[in-house]
């Protein structure tokens, strides 16, 4: 489903050139739950942005649904993105001026759904995520956990192939964090591919595979459960 070949991203300023990703190669199959881990500044978010078609790589190839997309224009990327990818962010990124319903509805508007279809889809997903009772509230009237649940609703409302989650529990306490991770796990079990950037071992344990990055390169790629066991044995 996703394949990168020597994916490279270089940031240039007037004085400094920083290689955020250095010839990264990996593949992710349909229905996988993959965690990307690594220390701050290792290139995790840069990788996620490229995978999410928010940014283009400086070099290498990126195959998305078997198509090479690294040279796509912003318009082409936007088109692919809105049909196939859902995003969940650490800071929720809901529009404060829009209600819960309207925030979730937003991607459907850009996909050109009719008003009736939008209503049906949004209510369906709100029910599913048990936040229907808050549909007319505004983000600032909700708890962090509830806000992230809304963000997940927004990510899944278009029934995307992939959900990209950037530290989805980073701003939540453990109870709310677990709630969100369980949601993602359920989605994965229903067939959605999930790629998640995280610092948290606990969250990573929900994934089937962990890609570890350091200084823009992949250092290990392992099965999550094996890693957890190995870590426990080492202790």
């Amino acid at each position, binding site marked *: 489903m996703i394949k990168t070949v020597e994916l490279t991203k270089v940031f240039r300023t007037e004085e400094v050139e920083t290689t955020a990703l250095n010839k990264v190669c990996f593949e992710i199959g349909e229905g996988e739950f993959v965690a990307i881990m690594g220390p701050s500044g290792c290139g995790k*978010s840069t990788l996620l*942005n490229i995978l*999410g078609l*928010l*940014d283009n790589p400086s070099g290498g190839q990126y195959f998305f649904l078997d198509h090479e997309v690294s040279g796509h224009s*912003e*318009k082409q990327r*936007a*088109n692919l*993105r*809105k*049909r196939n990818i859902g*995003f969940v*962010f650490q*800071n929720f*990124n*809901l*529009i404060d*001026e*829009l209600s819960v319903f*309207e925030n979730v509805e*937003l*991607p459907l*508007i*850009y*996909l050109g759904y009719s008003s009736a279809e939008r209503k049906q889809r949004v209510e369906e997903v709100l029910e599913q995520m048990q936040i229907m009772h808050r549909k007319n509230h505004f983000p600032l009237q909700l708890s962090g956990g509830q806000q992230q649940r809304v963000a997940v609703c*927004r990510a899944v409302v*278009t029934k995307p192939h992939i959900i990209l989650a950037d530290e989805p529990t980073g701003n939540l306490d453990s109870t709310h964090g677990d709630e969100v991770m369980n949601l993602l796990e359920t989605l994965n079990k229903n067939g959605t591919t999930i790629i998640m950037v995280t610092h948290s071992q606990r969250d990573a344990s929900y994934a089937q595979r962990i890609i570890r990055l350091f200084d823009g390169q992949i250092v290990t790629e392992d099965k999550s459960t094996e890693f957890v066991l190995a870590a426990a044995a080492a202790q």
Partner: protein
Amino acid sequence: MLHHHIKNLLRQIRQQKTTSIVNVLGLALGLGITLVIWIFVLHELSYDKFIADHNRIYRIHSTAIIGTGIPQRLPTSMYTLGDAMIREYPEVEELARFSSYYHSPNVVFEGEANTLSDILFGEPGFFEMFSFELLSGDPTQVLADPSSIVINETNAARLTKDPLDALNRMITIQGQTYRISGIMKDLPENTHMAFNAFSHFDNLPSGAKEAGMNFYTYVKLAPGTDIREVEAKMDATAADIIRSNPVYEGTQFTVEHELMRLGDIHLHSDLVWEMRDNGKMRNVIIFALLSFLILFLAIVNYINLATARSMLRSKEIGIRKVSGATRGGLIRQIMTESLLTIIMAFLAAFVLCEIFSHYFSQNIGVHLSIITLFSWKGLIAMLLILGVTSLLSGLYPAFYLAAFDPVKTLKGEVVKGSKGSAFRRVLVVFQFAITLFVAISLIVMTGQLRHLQRTDLGFDAEEVIILRNLSGQLWQSFQAVTTRLEAIPEVKSAGGGNFIYGGGNRIDLITELGKDPDSGVLADIITIDHGFLDAMGIELLQGRNFHAGSQMDVQSAFILNETAANALGFDEPVGKQLYLFGMQGPLIGVVKDFHLKSLHQAVDPLVMIYAQTGFPHIYLKALPGDYNQLSIAITEALHEFDPAYIPDIVFLDENLELLYQQEKQTASLLTAGAILAFVISLLGVYGLAAFSAERKIKETGIRIVLGASLRDLLWHFNRESVILSVIALIIATPLAWFAMNQWLDNFTVRVDMSVLWFVLPGAIIILISSLIISFQALYTVRSNPVESLKYE
């Protein structure tokens, strides 16, 4: 999608009330004044366009040249030229000539004395050629009978209650009886013509048609006629007429002609003897420019606030992009928001437009109605204004916001937008510069008008009263009337004159008797009596005044002004024998130059000749005091001679002010423009200050913790605005100086521009901006620094 955008916009407005109000109000003010100015512009451009075939109707203008004298341009021409054109010019489809004759004739209606002024005598086909509406009467027949007269609705209503009742009744004017054969609707405001009644030119005294250039002449030409060719033909015809008319024998008199399209007269013709004050194309252009400048100020506010608020919207834009919005889609969204905001402002602008139009109607003497905007031209103008405003306001913020990188905005990185803020600074400088330019121009104009009022005109205008347009009975007993008036204790002296100050005069060639006519000088000719110089306080430099009652002086003695005496090359002027078109006699006195016309014009050579009676106007010098009482006393005195006379009393200094009506109009519009420019610019300052104060709470907290004093903080907040104002002043000053220098060139007497006039608006803008910014800054500074640091 539109529904979504509208909802989104309304929520934004609710959440950011201050900036939204500033935004809409600023735009509404700018649009309001723009709409009013465009009502004015459309009004000015509409003159005479309602007349059928106006594109083919031309007025003949004549330029008379005597010898080597200065050419004199007139809106009139020779009567006989029209005769020749009807006979010999196949391209002339219709021709109409007319002339006024009586100032204030004796009028009797049904045995009672009455009044009727501004009567024109002309071609019987006048109403066929000019489609002025007749309430009653057939345009082709209404003047067929020479003893018929058409009068307007207002005057007809004065005669008989129902205007149409006046039809077919008899009215006597200067002893001649006319049948009222038609009632015309009062002339619309947008015509260059002015008359209350129109009759056949056979009623003019014999001789009125034979010489001079006293007839307004209009021709309707066949489609496709070459105008230049017709003009050349008219010059040749006029030369033939002059050659064959014994009156012009011995003079080198030539007349050149030009044709002015009917619809152009109001804005392009400003000659002596215009039927009413015309407008000026220059003013229309100045006002249109002013409207664009003010609208631009409002648009700048909108752009500045929209881009400044971009920081608040960056997250939203990022999310929309992530959710699938394309750049084009976002541009459309933001443009739609701009359009919706501008439509809201437009609605508010209509209310403001209605208020402004009352102000302007009062101040510029033109009735401006908002209905003009709903004509098809008005609708096109409004659509253009709406389109241009939406595009200019929306485009930059749309492209600016839509270009945000979602990766950065979603990480919560503040969009610093150094490009955006630099652009914003440039716009603020422009805004301030325009405001200062308008303000400086206004100050210079006001200064010049005040200077004109203080200029020594060569006479004493204080307490001079003019009794205008005397009736025939008063003309005839003129000396008795002045003697009676001088008997009023408050009247110091009285004199007669055949001219109205600032109006048009007869112009003719004066020469030294026996000399070649080419050595003569074209001069203004006025007829006065012995009391005139005294009443006006005009200083006699050499020789003597006309002797009261001296038959010797009547039509045979001359008083010149200094300029005329010098132009004729006289060292010892008094005693020289002079010749003036059929009259000769000695030069008996020379007066100090005085301004007979407005100060736009230099003092021209002036010849004064003497008459004892027949003056249409009396000039009175009064003692300071109660003018209402004096007016009553004057009216009583005049009624002893003509009980029906309706006095027309004006003060000379008021009449002087009328000469600068155009400048006053400009100044009045400019005053409103300058005030609005200030208000809009300062609204912008307020909007940006409120916004930046809110954004700087955390920064201010840090500064306070680090030991910044209140003064430091105020300077920190104000510094940028002060620097931008000074840059704006540096840009505006030379531009305003140049423009105002050009404007002042229209006057022969001009004020010296003071440095203070340039610095003062700058100082005011800096002061008020600083107050606004400081007020906002204080609000921020007063907040608890610890709280500030917790913020965000």
